[in-house]
């Protein structure tokens, strides 16, 4: 039963996938990641196998592997809730979705629509910035010298995917 219900999930792009590939660029979507918004603690929440992005002085976004629970709230959120008493812990797995950009051209593609400085000297591995990309609110975190994770609100995901495909044409 659980597996059947899990199979009913749909990402914000529906049946389409984001799959851009060039000599020095790939862009893919990673739907169903477990995303948890944590506020009200200056200590970075730690979750096994997850990226923890610092969105503000006491504001974090946990970006963990997909959950296989059928529940109103992901188990990661539930356990963070008890681990961080007093903090605000909100499951946002469906609120946002994740696009992953890799390759030397990844930063160049984003520079077509984002005024933020994404140079690794400014945004080192593990760091994250929030801002606008192509008229959509995003957070952008670096996981490697050539790899960026982009979190976008689900309702904007199709717009941003279309924009990324268009902005990538000169890099294919």
């Amino acid at each position, binding site marked *: *039963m659980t597996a*059947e*219900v899990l199979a*009913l*999930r*749909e*990402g*914000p792009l*529906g*049946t389409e996938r984001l799959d851009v590939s060039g000599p020095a660029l790939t862009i893919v979507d990673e*739907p*169903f990641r477990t995303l948890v*918004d944590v*506020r*009200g603690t200056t200590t970075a929440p730690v979750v096994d196998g997850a990226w923890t992005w610092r969105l503000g002085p006491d504001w974090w976004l946990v970006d963990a592997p997909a959950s296989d629970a*059928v*529940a*109103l709230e992901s188990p990661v959120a539930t356990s963070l809730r008890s681990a961080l008493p007093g903090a*605000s*812990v*909100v*499951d*946002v*797995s*469906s*609120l*946002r979705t994740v696009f992953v950009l890799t390759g030397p051209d990844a930063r*160049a593609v984003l*520079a*077509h*629509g*984002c*005024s*933020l*400085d994404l*140079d690794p000297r*400014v945004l080192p591995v593990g760091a994250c910035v929030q801002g606008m990309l*192509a*008229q*959509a609110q995003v957070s952008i975190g670096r996981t490697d010298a050539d790899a960026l994770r982009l979190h976008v*609100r*689900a*309702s*904007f995901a*199709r*717009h*941003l995917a*279309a*924009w990324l495909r*268009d*902005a990538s*044409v*000169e890099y294919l």
Partner: protein
Amino acid sequence: MSSRLPTGGTRLDRSRPVTISIDGQDVPAFVGDTLASALLGSDVRLVSAGIYSGRPRGVMGVGAEESNAFVQVTSGPGEPMVRATELEVHEGLSVERIAGRGWLPEGIDHTRYDKVWAHCEVLVVGGGEAGVTAALEAAARGVRVVVCDDRPALTDARAGELVSHPDVRVLTRTTVVGAHDHHHLVAVERRTDHLGDDAPPDVARRRLWHVKAAEVVLATGTQERPLVFPDNDRPGVMLAGAAATYVRRYGVLPGHRGVVWVAHDDGLADAVALADAGVELLVVADVRTTVTPALADALAERGVPLVLGAEVVGTDGDDDGFLYRVHLRGPDGVVVHDVDLLAVSGGLNPAVQLWSQAGGKLAWSTEAAGFVPAAPPPDAAYPLSVVGSALTGATGAVTAPATFFCGDVDDADAARVYLDPQRDATLADVRHAHLAGLTSVEHVKRFTTIGTASDQGRGFGVLTVGVLAQVLGRPVTEVGTTTYRPPYTPLPFGLLAGRDRGALSDPVRVTAMHDRHLAAGVPLEDVGQWKRPWYFPQRGESMHDAVLRECRAVREDVGMMDASTLGKIVCHGADVGEMLDRVYTGLMSSLKVGKVRYGVMCSPDGMVADDGTVARLSDDEWLLTTTTGNAASVLDTLEEWQQTEWPDLDARFTSVTEQWAVVALAGPRSRDVLAGLAPDLDVSAEGFAFMEWRDATVAGLPVRVMRISFSGELAYELHVPAAWGGALWDAVASAGGVTPYGTETMHVLRAEKGYPIVGQDTDGTVTPVDLGMAWAISPKKVREGRDFVGARSLVRDESNRPDRRHLVGLVPVDGSTAIAEGSQLVDAGADLAAVPVPMHGHVTSAYASVALGTPFALALLDGGRDRLGEELDAVDLRVPVRVRVTEPVPYDPEGERRDG
């Protein structure tokens, strides 16, 4: 006849001949030519005409200072008002001559435009010697450098070193057009214009660069300034430096027999270069009485006579108006020379436009005979420096340049001394401005229009300042210059749009059920950036019929809608109750876990700002819903009040709008449908009361069910993590006999109950009391004197005047005529020809109602609550409909249908 030299031309690729055309006439050219050099190379002298005078005009300059030679490009996507001096040729380039104004090409420009944001520690504008030096020095410090140059390539010997540096980005064919606040500079890169049909379709034709630079170095060089005299606008009159540049860059002789008239050493050097290239120079004249001996000797060696203290006093034209004779007045009187070229140069203006844009001041320098950078921008944090000739004007001059602009011209000739050929504005206009009492250069600019054309005074602006100083009898230093503003050169709208056009012009937001709506082929309504199902027509059904059917289904059976766009905010913290008491008019802190309450928010002026529901999820966690359109502004309001006014309150806010997909289930049979989908949930009226929420398993999915109604019927909202939004929609749709409905039906159903929509029935001037919702203001809070946003405004006398506009209902007196939204309410039988027609209010919502059996409307009416039963005319497009004022809750005013 050709003026193309057999060899030479640093920019030419003579192995690649191309053919271009002007007004259908083929012109041979080489790759590397500009339109101007190609035309001069084929002795095509006529390029444009005066906008008012119709006088023939030719090429005068060689770059951005060109004030004459603008054409309409008709090949490719086409473009109006393109400078011939910067238009690179390609096979198939086709242009038309224009007289001062072009036209927007018809059809859609399908070429791509692009934008890029770049960040650097040092931006160098200008890739000449000084710019390359500055860039290499910066690069050696290990910082990021961007170099912009408007030419096709850097010619400095060190360019290769610069281009190969990993932290240096060299942008050629790139013009920096704006120096804005906060070190933000904007540049235009022309990427494929010069390739014509060979341009790869996927490569953006032009790119707009937004450069954020910690430090800006201007190495912009100089722009040549003309000298003026009667009939100075004829084809054949050119800038001396430009004439020499055509020889050097393009292997083109700008004329065959010429006179040169200058006021500075560089102009004399240009004369030497022209003589060397083979132009027969009849005489070189200098306004100065002393010149650098080496230059005088160089001319003498070439057999070119030099006349000092001389000035051109006029020209004659041939039958076509082209330059034919020059009248030169020297110490021995006026001599007339037969020529086809008159090369003039009044000085070299430092290119200080960006300095001025950034807020830097300019001052006249006698040494440079030009305006040079003076006081830096007032923002001390704007690290802007100027290097090279942009700072000093001419370089290498031995004898000082003359501060000279125009000789003595009598009034009869002044109307033929052109100070802005693009505007056909003359010395006579400046004199007229002076006679009208204008003395400020800014006023004279606007009075005469000099410097307002697309060259923005780059050609003649400083010269006009000098001429004005002569007219006023004051030194140039006192007259000063006008302020330069962006853009330096014009940029097309396509570039401003970039890729934000068509489907990408504005984000389209969609819900988790969107693919279902598309598959069902339903018409979509724009609600802010969202696309929402408007109505769900059956085959061949009109919108009117579909909405009536959907309304009937909800009133009599059961319907479902996608309510996912509702704004949703999780509030967490020990003080959320207190916080919500301060931002809603009602009392929220007393809400029990498991319960939901309706709330109205006011802005500080007491006017309704939003409404929605508040659910208490636990002791310290709450879920707010907002109207679709106000989700972001409500979150901002909460953050602002908490962060700026009440930082002591323990409360944090997280938007969860897209986390939850929402299916609204409404109608008397909704309880049965829900019971079937959620067998474990007690859906009885006692077990699950109105304004309560429950977590439940619905169709096997984890769902938070809220018993909320926006239709007055028994209704539920099913909130599911959005990944299952589609699955929940499918499950409810296949539960049997559930009618999907859209936003239009939702509007009708809520209006029948008199539920206002904030932003439709309100407009920022409406209080809760005006809406008849005094009950939404907590009497307990008022009694205890507890403050909330808008509280003080609500007790002002003005907020309680009896003649304020109140929300009322309207029905047509004849029971059948539809009332139009936006209708004005006037006295019954009012004379609509009167000016003005006394107006009492307006219709905010209007629908046909199957439940009422009559059209109806909601309206804001002066003192409306005291006018129930009164008849008025609702006027739309001058057509009145007689209406009767009713209570604003036309349907089920006792709320008996809420429990099914």
